[in-house]
C-alpha cells in the first residue's frame, strides 16, 4: 500500500498498511507476524482453544515463554516446579509450540528475549498476552497487548481487530548526562505528559535524545510508554538498531539480511507526515527521577520534594507513608529490586554494577537483582558483573519477572519501602502495603549501598 503523496506517512502508518487485511466498522484486521504466550495464560488459552475446536494457524510463528511464574530462588523448592510452569510445559508440548523453558538458553522475560533473539524485528507486528508488548517498539517492531480470549483469536486466525489509534510524536531532545539513563527520561516524560494525553494512542519517540540511545535504552522507553496509556510505541529503526540486530539468533543472515536492511531503511516517518499531536520535551539538565506516589506519573527529580496535593493524589502520598513537602533523599529503605522487562538488560546491570563496584549493600537492606534473560545472565557473568553484585551483597536470581508483580519471587512485608527498577508502583503491586519507588538501576543500586534514597550521580563519577 502506498502512502498518500499529499501528506506522507508515519512509521506507524507504514507498518499498519503492510499488515492491514481488511477494515470493518471502524476497526482494521491486522496480520500478526509473531505471537508470544506467557506462562500465566498459556495453559488456559490452549485449553480453551481445544474446547472451542480451534487450531493454531501458524504454530511456527508462536512462542511460549516461562517468565511470570519462575521462582527467583531455589530456596522455596525445586526451581520450575510451580503449577503454572508445569501446565505451560504440558500445553506447549501438546500443541507443538516452541517453549523457552526454565533453565534453557533462550529463556527469560518475553519482552527481553524476543528482541534479543531477533524474533521481534523492525516493521513486524508482535502480539503478546501481556500489557508490556509495546516494549519491542524500541527495536522498530509494532507491539500490541491483548487479553487471553483475544489471544485465542490471534492464534486461530493470525490476525487481530484493532481500532487505528491516534498518533502522537514525542520529541525528546538533549543528551544523557553521566549517571542518567533511559529510565530517568521516560519517568520524566510520564511526569510531563501524565496519564490522559496519550491514552490509547500510538506514540513515536523521536528527537536527538532518542537518536543517541542504544536499542536497550529505547526498549526501556517504549516499555514505559504503556504507563502513559499508549496502545503501542515505536522508535524508527536506524543504524544503531541494525548493528544491534545483526547476527542475533533468529535475525536474517547473508543475502536475506541485506534484503531486510533495504526494507527497514525506509521504516521512518516521512517529513510531511502529520501526527494528531506533537509533543516536545526538553531533557537537557535532567536529574535522576523517582516516583513518590502510586501511579508512574507521580514522579519528581531525586533532589525534589513530595508535592503538596489537594486532590485524589494525596491518597498516593498517604499510601506511600510520606508527608507533602518532604524530601525523598535520606528516606530509609528496606529493599531494592533490579530487574523486569523495563530494566533487566545488560546495560542496566552494567549501570548498577558501576555504582556497586567495591561497595556493599547497607545493613538491613535486602537487595535482589534478576537478569531479564539467560542471555543477559550469561553475558553478565562473562563480564564479571555477577561477581560485582554478589560481592556487594545482592542476591542474584533466575531470569523472570520476579518481584515486579509480586510473583515468582520474594515476599515483601506490608509497609516495607522498596526502590525498584520496574514499571508500576501501583498500590499492592509488589505485595500488600508495599511502598514502591520506581527509579533507574543506578538510583536503585545507590539506594542499596546507602540504605536510603539518594542521588546516584556521586557514585558514578570516575566509576
Amino acid at each position, binding site marked *: 500500500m502506498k502512502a498518500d503523496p499529499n501528506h506522507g506517512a508515519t512509521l506507524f502508518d507504514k507498518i499498519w498498511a*503492510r*499488515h*492491514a*487485511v*481488511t477494515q*470493518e*466498522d471502524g476497526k482494521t*484486521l491486522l*496480520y500478526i*507476524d509473531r505471537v508470544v504466550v506467557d506462562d*500465566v495464560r498459556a495453559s*488456559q488459552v490452549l485449553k480453551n482453544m481445544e474446547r*472451542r475446536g480451534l487450531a493454531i494457524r501458524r*504454530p*511456527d*510463528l508462536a*512462542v511460549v515463554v516461562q517468565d511470570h511464574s519462575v521462582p527467583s530462588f531455589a530456596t522455596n523448592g525445586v526451581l520450575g516446579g510451580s*503449577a*503454572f510452569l508445569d*501446565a505451560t510445559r504440558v500445553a506447549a508440548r501438546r500443541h507443538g509450540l*516452541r517453549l523457552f523453558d526454565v533453565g534453557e538458553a533462550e529463556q527469560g522475560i518475553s519482552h527481553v528475549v524476543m528482541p534479543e533473539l531477533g*524474533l521481534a524485528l523492525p516493521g*513486524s507486528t508482535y502480539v503478546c*498476552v*501481556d*500489557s508490556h508488548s509495546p516494549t519491542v517498539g524500541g527495536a522498530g517492531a509494532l507491539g500490541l497487548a*491483548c*487479553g487471553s*480470549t*483475544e489471544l*485465542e*483469536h490471534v492464534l*486461530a*486466525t*493470525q490476525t487481530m481487530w484493532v*481500532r487505528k*489509534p491516534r498518533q502522537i510524536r514525542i520529541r525528546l531532545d538533549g543528551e544523557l548526562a553521566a549517571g542518567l539513563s533511559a529510565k530517568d527520561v521516560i519517568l520524566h516524560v510520564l511526569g510531563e505528559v501524565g*496519564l*490522559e494525553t496519550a*491514552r*490509547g494512542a500510538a506514540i513515536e519517540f523521536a528527537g536527538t535524545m532518542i537518536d543517541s540511545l542504544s536499542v536497550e535504552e529505547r526498549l526501556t522507553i517504549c516499555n514505559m510508554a504503556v504507563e502513559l*496509556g499508549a*496502545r503501542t510505541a515505536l522508535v524508527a529503526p536506524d543504524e544503531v538498531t541494525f548493528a544491534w540486530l545483526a547476527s542475533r539468533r*533468529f*535475525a*536474517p543472515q547473508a543475502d*536475506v*539480511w541485506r*534484503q*531486510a536492511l533495504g526494507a527497514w531503511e525506509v521504516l521512518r516517518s516521512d517529513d510531511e507526515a502529520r501526527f494528531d499531536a506533537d509533543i516536545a520535551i526538553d531533557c537537557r539538565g535532567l536529574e535522576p527521577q523517582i516516583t513518590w506516589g502510586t*501511579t508512574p506519573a507521580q514522579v519528581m527529580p531525586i533532589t525534589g520534594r513530595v508535592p503538596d496535593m489537594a486532590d*485524589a493524589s494525596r491518597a498516593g502520598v498517604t499510601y506511600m507513608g510520606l508527608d507533602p513537602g518532604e524530601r525523598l533523599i535520606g528516606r530509609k529503605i528496606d529493599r531494592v529490586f533490579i530487574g523486569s522487562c523495563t530494566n533487566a538488560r545488560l546495560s542496566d546491570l552494567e549501570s548498577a554494577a558501576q555504582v556497586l563496584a567495591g561497595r556493599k549493600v547497607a545493613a538491613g537492606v535486602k537487595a535482589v537483582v534478576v537478569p531479564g534473560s539467560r542471555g543477559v545472565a550469561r553475558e553478565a557473568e562473562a563480564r564479571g558483573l555477577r561477581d560485582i553484585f554478589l560481592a556487594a551483597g545482592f542476591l542474584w536470581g533466575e531470569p523472570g519477572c520476579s518481584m515486579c*508483580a*509480586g*510473583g515468582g519471587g520474594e515476599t515483601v512485608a506490608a509497609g516495607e519501602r522498596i526502590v525498584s527498577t520496574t514499571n*508500576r508502583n*501501583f*498500590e*499492592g503491586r509488589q*505485595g500488600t502495603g508495599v511502598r514502591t519507588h520506581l527509579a533507574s538501576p543506578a538510583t536503585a543500586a545507590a539506594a542499596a549501598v546507602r540504605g536510603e534514597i539518594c542521588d546516584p550521580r556521586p557514585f558514578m563519577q570516575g566509576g
Partner: protein
Amino acid sequence: MEKFSQVRGAAAPLLLDNVNTDQITPVVFMRSLEPDYEKALFGRWRLAASEAEPFVLDRPHFKRAPILVAGANFGCGSAREVAVWALVAHGIRCIVARSFSEVFRESTLKNGVLPICLGVADQSAFEQKVVAVDGQAAFEVDLVAQTITCPDGTVFSFAMAHNERAALLEGLDDVALTLRHRALIDAREAQIAIEQPWLQSVRS
C-alpha cells in the same frame, strides 16, 4: 460467547479514576490455575474495608449489582483478562465508565460484558443519579435501544459500534466472524511471506 441484550438492577458507584487491574484482581489472589474469581474481585480493598463501612460491592444493595459505574481509565495497567472474569463472577454485566483502557474494553466485549461511555455531560448527570438512588431502585440498560433508563424515568442514550453491538446481542463467535475474511487473510499472509522472507520459524 454470552449474549447481552438487557440488564436490570442496581448500579454500584466506584467513582475513582485510573482503577487498575492490579486493584481489580491482585496477583496474590491469582496464584492458582483455578482461582476463586469472586473472592479475588477487589480482594485487597474488600479485605481492608470494615463491617461498618464495607466496600461498595459488599453493601447489601450492591451484592448482586449487575451495573458498575466507574471513573476515567478504568481497567488500566496489566492486560490480565481475569479482571473481567472476576467482575463477571460477581454478576457485573455492564460497566459505565468515563473511559476505559483499550485492552480492558476489548476483554469486556469478549466476555459478554457491555462497556458504556456516555460522554462527559451525561456521565456526570448519570453518576449523580446513581449516587442519589444508592441501590434503592433498579436501572435498566438496553442494548437493543442503546439506552440506560433511570428509576425516575430519565433516559440516557449511548453509542456503540455496529459490529460490537451485533456480536453482543447475538453472542457471535469472534473467530467465526473473522474467518469470513479467510481469503483476504490468506492473500495478506502470502504477500508478507514475499515482503518479509526473514520471518523465521521459531521451531527451526
